[in-house]
């Protein structure tokens, strides 16, 4: 028991340290696909540690929210990291929370980001906050339905049980329901991580941006902590996708070999998802902001179809 708890902490640390690397890989892949050399894989680490060392500039009208939000977001995302299985099928906090808690913890992160975006009184912050909240509100049913379409074959909301049941299921390559929900969930993941075609993660000061506009007023260590939290959130969302759709290879037994194998498979899977998203980002352009609901509606429709197929089975 103590061993497992300690391992849970180690696992969290691994995910935490791994998160910037995923971003580095995505950026590198994108750069190579666009015929650029691109920055090193480790550039995100350099950025974060540079920001952490810097002094900050804050807005005069800003309140304590600007100073606490990065920490709250970081800690809440870490909590999700403790709730979700990554290398080993049992998450350290698995017995106290389920997939609903995970969804609502992410909602806490978003809530604080959006509220603090209004703190400095800049129009950009307000615009980003408004758009992010509204779009993510539409994203919420898409996410829930995609989750339901997978959970129908499992019958529980406990993430650890979901993964261990999914591994044992007989997989049919021509099970269209599963493919549909996979596609639906992928759209949700793109939206939640703020990537093309939903949002462009590389721009600042572009009127179409959603997510980045909320974070213009952070600087110094606050920005560093927040940046790390967002990278961590991205990695955890990828882990969620991996858990629900490609769960094989995760360590089921608590032995050294299984865990090492689990680690290797996990790293490969997450990077593969990242590369897939990088390819999508290169192949598509960002869509107009008021077309986004249609994209999410298509995700909802796919999930509904998947649910119908699952029920009919």
């Amino acid at each position, binding site marked *: 028991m103590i061993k497992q708890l300690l391992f849970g902490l180690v696992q969290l640390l691994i995910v935490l340290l791994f998160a910037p690397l995923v971003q580095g890989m995505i950026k590198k892949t994108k750069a190579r696909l666009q015929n650029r050399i691109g920055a090193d894989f480790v550039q995100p680490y350099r950025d974060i540690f540079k920001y952490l060392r810097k002094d900050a500039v804050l807005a005069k009208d800003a309140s304590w929210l600007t100073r606490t939000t990065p920490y709250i977001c970081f800690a809440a995302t870490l909590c999700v990291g403790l709730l979700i299985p990554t290398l080993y099928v049992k998450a350290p906090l698995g017995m106290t929370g*389920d997939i609903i*808690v995970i969804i609502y913890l992410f909602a806490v992160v978003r809530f604080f980001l959006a509220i603090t975006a209004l703190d400095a*009184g800049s129009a950009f912050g307000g615009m980003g*906050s408004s758009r992010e909240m509204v779009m993510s509100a539409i994203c919420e049913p898409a996410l829930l339905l995609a989750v339901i379409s997978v959970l129908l074959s499992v019958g529980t909301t406990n993430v650890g049980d979901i993964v261990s049941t999914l591994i044992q299921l007989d997989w049919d390559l021509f099970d269209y329901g599963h493919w549909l929900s996979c596609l639906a969930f992928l759209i949700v993941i793109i939206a939640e991580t703020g990537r093309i075609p939903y949002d462009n993660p590389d721009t600042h000061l572009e009127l179409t941006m959603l997510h980045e506009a909320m974070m213009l007023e952070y600087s110094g260590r606050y920005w560093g902590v927040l940046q790390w939290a967002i990278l961590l959130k991205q990695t955890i969302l990828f882990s969620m996708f991996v858990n629900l759709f490609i769960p094989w290879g995760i360590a089921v037994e608590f032995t050294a070999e299984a865990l090492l194998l689990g680690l290797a498979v996990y790293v490969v899977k997450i990077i593969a998802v990242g590369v897939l998203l990088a390819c999508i980002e290169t192949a598509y352009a960002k869509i107009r902001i008021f077309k986004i609901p249609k994209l999410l509606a298509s995700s909802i429709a796919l999930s509904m179809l998947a649910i119908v197929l699952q029920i009919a089975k």
Partner: protein
Amino acid sequence: METADLYLSLFQVSLLCFIAGGILPALMNGKQKFANTFANGCSFVGGSLITIIAGRLLIFQDEFAVTAWRMMSNIVLKVHFDTLAALFLLVIGVMSIVCSLYAQGYATKYYEKGVAGYLGALMNIFTLSLIGVVGVDSSVTFLIFWEFMALSSFCLVMFEHEQAKVRSGGYMYLIMTHVCGVFLSFAFLILYVYTGSLEFVDYKNVGAILPETVKSVVFFFFFIGFGAKMGLFPINVWLPRAYPVAPSSATALMSSAMIKTAVYAFLRVSFDFLGTGPAWWGITVMVVGTVSAIVGIMLGVIQNDIKRFLAYSSVENMGIICVGIGASLYFQSVDQVVLGALAMTATLYHVFNHSVFKSLLFMGAGAVLKATGTCDVSKLGGLIHRMPWTAAAFLVGGMSLASLPPFNGFMSEWALLQSLFHMIFDCEGGAVKLFAALVVAILGFSGALAAVAVVKHFGIAFLAKPRSEGAVSAKEVNRSMRLGMGLLSILSLVLGLYPGGVVALTNAVTSRYFPAKIGGDMMLYVPFTPQVSQNVSVGLIGIVFALLLFGVFLCIRLNYGKSAYVLQDTWTCGSVHVPKMEYTATSYSHPILRIFHGVLGLSRKVTVEKEYEYYPKRIHHALDISARVGDNVYKPSIGILVQVFKRIKIIQSGNLQAYLSYMVAALILTLLWSR
């Protein structure tokens, strides 16, 4: 026997407090300060005693009955508190304590006008009527107290009757309450016809002797009657008009306790009287609840007035409660006892939670109103610097409203979602599964929209630069108001972190209808089957969160030293940052309007005052959402009613002889009837 005496004396003293508090302050209105303090003191003492009674009844699963007055041979004024009534009595008691603390500070606003004593007196009378509604156990006395409650709350709504807006809201409330109250009278009449009794005791399991159709008719008459009081769609129009205009302390009590009495009454008639019904009852109730939730919050998010938003959000929350009731009715009819118990626990938990966070938010809005003179967020801003306590309380309430952990709103949302998820997994029938999945999706959507609304109202009103004189000169409110809000904030956190306290109370009620038991201490524990269970503990996650927060902070502090920052103006491309540059409340929710313009019935009017073609002097921009229901359903039906009443009006000729002949005719008819 001793406990019964204890209950009796506590109950008598508390009633005495409320009656004294309801009469004397109105007589002593000349001495404003004394009258106010006396009234709130009475509420406080009475509320505390009521809380003690209700808590004791629930913990020991006791019952308490007392007969007060034999009005006529079979109309007896008596109260009977079982665990279901005690649960709602507890809500009334706690809320009347907190509201009296808050009102003590809030009513200082009315000293100048010299009406604070009347407000205090009305509040006491109102609380008395609430206790009556949950306590009495015969149909006639229930209807009398229901009416008493409607009238006393009408007086509270009309308290600032000098303003036309207040009067129109008040009259609309009065009319809607009565139109829908008719359904209640009919439903009780039908029950009387079939049982020949007015007593609730004889209605118990009356569903077994009623024919199937009559049963459904009675059920839906009750649903319409009580649904109107809950503010369910489409009979929700009165709620957002009446709530915002009442004094904030009264609104807090109305939104936390009054609409809960409708929940109480609906639970009473559906579970106690009619018993297990057909599955489609539950499904219908769920549909109405889901539609109310989504319509309520969608209209709420586009409001710019905090109180109106909160009123619309009540519609949403009542919808959620209704989904819970519908789900437990459905689970009861398909014999899923664990899920039924879970859904009912979620419902009752949400009843507590909504009482706590909604009155907290209304108190926060009242504090803003008192400090700045307006609740219109587009005229506010920057209040977090001037009113830090109010801002913190509002943030807590808002997070709870958006059902975010670790606050209480999350726990009931979790339990409800969990029961709906298992409706998908465990119930028979593809259509039901798909339906439940849709309900989950819509509840998720409305929850996320609630978060949008909270961010909008908190962010615009409390953060950044003030947008008006009132907001610049705002001061933190007095101590008693802060005390009221602080207590509720703490309660909100405690109910979220420690579900065991609530579950112990709700189990006393759910065990009456479902043999299964939901466990709870630090965790909320749902045993689906002896092997499979699901538990959740925000408390544990909260502790881990706090440790992580502290750890991260410490780590960075140790590695990089104390945080150093300089304060600068927000960058505005070189010009001076003025409030006009901030994002406005209307634009914050504009994406919603734009995306759902088809649903909301958005009309947009832009008039340009031209001087030069390309540089207009002034642009007027007006948005109106005369939501489809308002124009297409209500206006025509009001028109029809007016036409009908004009026809009927001819009997009211003003001629004395005519009136006398009516009386004679009525007398003759009565004599013939009773012969």
